[in-house]
């Protein structure tokens, strides 16, 4: 290993740099291995052990992080709740990223009426506050995990389209792209083989920053009762029920909120690091 590589490795292993990614990785692992990690089933009720503070033992339950209004274990529900947050965020980012990037690339490469149409539609979507658009669409489709993912994808694709559009505009004029087209490569080949690899960095920056926002959006919709439906555990719905017990059982709302805050903070910091790496303006 060269001296430069060794120094880079040392810098890269600094705790300050890696803790956000470590937290994200831990939450992902907790979500994957939830059935093995959670002490109890997240939906098992113990009505004599309702709203017990952290550390209480009631019947066969040891409530490390307390129990909720139905005597369910808050720790187990937090572990299972991470699944909803991550699945919704991953799926909606991939879906909106794919749709937005493809449309943005097509608009910038094809130009003409396609460009006008796509970018006008982008303007329309961006002029409706995303929360309101999500609320009205869920109100129409009905609340469910799949619908929340579809709604978030529907409301967020224009962000990617804008970035992909502006990046493609500059890449499409480069000599190697023109040469590829002159040599007979069709539009899909030019876009996906020659343009996409050059704009994927900028799109990834948007995707990482959007990921944290999607976690918050999902929690917000669940908080309003428009996300996944009970009894499925989600951090947003746990906060919503915990709100009714702020005076008597602080842990029910505080702990899922803390998890949400720490995860989003870690994702945002990771996003900032990705941006610093990939966006030349921040170097």
């Amino acid at each position, binding site marked *: 290993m060269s001296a430069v590589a060794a120094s880079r490795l040392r810098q890269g292993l600094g705790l300050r740099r890696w803790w956000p990614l470590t937290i994200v990785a831990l939450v992902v692992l907790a979500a994957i291995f939830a059935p093995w990690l959670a002490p109890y089933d997240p939906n098992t009720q113990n009505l004599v052990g309702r709203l017990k503070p952290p550390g209480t033992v009631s019947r066969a339950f040891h409530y490390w992080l307390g129990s909720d209004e139905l005597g369910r274990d808050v720790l187990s529900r937090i572990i299972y709740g991470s699944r909803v947050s991550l699945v919704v965020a991953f799926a909606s980012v991939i879906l909106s990223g794919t749709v937005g990037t493809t449309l943005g690339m097509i608009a910038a490469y094809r130009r003409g009426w396609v460009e006008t149409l796509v970018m006008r539609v982008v303007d329309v979507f961006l*002029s*409706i506050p995303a929360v309101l658009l999500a609320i009205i669409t869920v109100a129409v489709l009905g609340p469910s995990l799949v619908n929340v993912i579809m709604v978030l994808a529907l409301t967020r694709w224009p962000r990617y389209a804008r970035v992909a559009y502006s990046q493609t505009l500059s890449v499409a004029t480069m000599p190697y792209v023109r040469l590829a087209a002159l040599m007979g490569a069709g539009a899909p080949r030019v876009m996906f083989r020659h343009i996409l690899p050059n704009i994927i960095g900028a799109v990834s920056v948007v995707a990482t920053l959007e990921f944290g926002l999607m976690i918050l959006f999902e929690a917000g919709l669940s908080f309003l009762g*428009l996300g996944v439906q009970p009894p499925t555990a989600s951090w947003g719905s746990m906060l919503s029920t915990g709100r009714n017990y702020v005076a008597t059982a602080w842990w029910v709302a*505080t702990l899922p*909120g803390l998890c949400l805050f720490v995860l989003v903070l870690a994702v945002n910091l990771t996003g900032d690091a990705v941006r610093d790496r990939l966006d030349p303006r921040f170097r």
Partner: protein
Amino acid sequence: MPGFLLQRAGQALVTILGVATLIFFVQRLTGDPTYLLVPETATKADIDALRHALGFDRPLVVQYLDFLADLARFDLGQSVVQRVPVLTIIGSRLPYTLMLAAGALTVACGIGIPIGILLAVFRDSAIAKAAAGFVLAAQSMPTFWSGILMIMVFSVLLGWLPPSSTGDLRHLVMPSFALGLLSMATFARIARSALLDELSKDYARTARSRGVRTPRLLLRHIARNASIPVITVLALEISNLLAGAVIVETVFAWPGIGQVTVQAILARDFMIVQGVVLLGAFVTVALNLISDVLYSVVDPRIVLDGAR
């Protein structure tokens, strides 16, 4: 100037038409919108009667043109549950939401912009690093969690502030902070980058080399130039605040438009939800138009470019 304004107003009109079209079709995602408006216990006869009364049994094109004509007359329809025009319901709740948005904007700008200046002027100092940490934390904190935490600390534990509903100014403090914190982070980031951008320009360096002190440099030379990105964000953030009010009003039982929206969703009163979304979109478009006009006041070069 009139040419520039006309061009922007024309674009805004096209966007509003697009928004109305989008909302119309979102409403029909599941086919027949009548089902959005009836209680789950409704009989087939009830559903058929309502479908006919609201004209949903007519051809789609006719419904669409009718919908646009109603909008042009500022007619947002009638609440199916309360039997009152949607505009009346929104009008009665709007002052509360505006009050909350004003409070939140005061928090966002009042804290965010000074923090942005601090981050730009005292780069790398300990206080700037602490402020950057605060901004990052505020950006990652869900409004519903910060609201609940504030209620726990300031109402339940200390008993300083009322936990919910309206009344005197003390009722406005916690909702304003809960709603304003996220925007505060945005203002701090934008103010910082706008100031750093201007501070690195030749005129700022020349002024400094002539011995102009930092406060005077910021106020007399840089403030106007750095305000353009802040104005852009201001327009965006006001519409974000109106949308964010949906959650904050639910947390604090604040009787604004957000609360009425959530109640309407639960009561399957879709006309109110649709009215609020349309209003939110129109406000966003209008604010963008106003910010365009403000740019031209702040930076005359923009008018020249637009007129060309």
